[in-house]
């Protein structure tokens, strides 16, 4: 089991890490724009983000399944462009969709929580619009970190969507969460509990690492 376990852990970290990276690369700028810019449709975007934050992962799994299945909504597109169902790529896509609204929504909320006059005051010190926006985002860094942690938490522990689009195939798409479900259904509660402990430990270590990236912010 130890070799298999290492493989499951590695795949879990790879899928979740990649999904979190993609959702952060899109979600942080999207949240910053939603929090900083005034534009037509801003309220609608915020409503969509906040709705997405509470979207059931299993529905997103169904959505991704219908997108990627052979006769699905995107069947008109060349097959090599899209991730294939029952592959890690499909799981990354599903997890990205799950975590993106959380990252963007919490980032927007963090940016909106910064003193509104700060942006004007740093511009008065000579910052350009983009430098002022960066200053505000930097002030909201603890909130942005919470956004990333929330995104991570939503997908490292997620099971419905990855089961649906990944299939829990041994050695191919089996993650810690899907392995726990499988072992529980087989009555191997000790193994399921051990896997749960590993999952909790990984989640704790990942969050510690992310907090370490924040440096002294927590102490200030």
């Amino acid at each position, binding site marked *: 089991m130890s070799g298999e376990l290492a493989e499951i852990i590695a795949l879990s970290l790879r899928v979740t890490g990649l999904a979190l990276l993609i959702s952060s690369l899109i979600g942080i700028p999207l949240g910053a724009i939603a929090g900083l810019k005034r534009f037509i449709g801003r309220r609608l975007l915020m409503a969509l983000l906040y709705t997405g934050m509470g979207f059931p992962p299993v529905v997103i799994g169904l959505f991704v399944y219908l997108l990627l299945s052979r006769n699905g909504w995107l069947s008109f597109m060349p097959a090599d462009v899209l991730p294939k169902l029952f592959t890690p790529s499909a799981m990354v896509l599903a997890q990205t969709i799950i975590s993106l609204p959380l990252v963007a929504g919490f980032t927007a909320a963090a940016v909106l929580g910064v003193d509104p006059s700060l942006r004007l005051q*740093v511009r008065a*010190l000579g*910052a350009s619009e983009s430098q002022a926006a960066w200053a505000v985002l930097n002030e909201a860094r603890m909130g942005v970190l919470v956004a990333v942690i929330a995104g991570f938490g939503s997908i490292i522990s997620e099971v419905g969507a990855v089961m649906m689009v990944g299939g829990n195939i041994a050695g191919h798409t089996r993650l810690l969460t899907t392995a726990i479900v499988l072992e529980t259904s087989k009555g191997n509660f000790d193994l399921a509990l051990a896997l749960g402990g590993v999952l909790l430990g990984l989640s704790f270590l990942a969050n510690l690492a992310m907090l370490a990236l924040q440096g002294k912010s927590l102490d200030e």
Partner: protein
Amino acid sequence: MTPLYRITGLTKEYNGRRVLDLPALEIQSGELLALVGPSGAGKSTLLRLLNFLELPSRGDISFKDSTYNSGKQPPLDVRRTITTVFQRPALLKRSVFDNIAYGLRLRRHHAIREAITDILGRVGLNDLAPHPARTLSGGEAQRVALARALCLQPEVLLLDEPTANLDPYNINLIEDIIQRHRAETNATVVLVTHNTFQARRLADRVGLMLNGSLVELTGRDEFFESPRDARTRAFIAGEMIY
């Protein structure tokens, strides 16, 4: 003498409501112009326009040799010759040093540490450089805000109620810093204040603003000794004016 600012036909509206209407105003290089008036008179709006942080709805602002309006913003290097100290300083969640260094770093200043040591000495905060800015008192925070503006050596210093809500000690300190800075740099200063005594102490010229308009603008002594407008007389006397 060519004025530093020449304002013509300037208006500013928010959501269709006109908050500023200045047919003409000139600000001379090196002077300290104080703008007094009740809240909502348009004083702070005018400062934001003079710093080019906002654009006018209509009208022109000529600054030095160029004219700017709703369709033409000044380039960043022009805007960086002007800075504002606000009534309520918004400091970054960093150290005092980093807060003061912010504007210098934007300008890629070559001797940041020396500049900050010098300015902290001037504002009497030498020991606070490494401290988190959020631990400062109101008076200290305002002195940091003043320090981060003055260390940029601005040609134009805009002060928006810089001593409001401060104790007499800090008010004296800040007024001294402003006067010393003027004497050393000949910077142009526009001071917005509710405090007529402060305007009297510091200004070369004083203007009364009311409902977005400039009621009267004259030399300091004339403004306080022989104001022409009844509303100016009432404001100086501390009466409610509309």
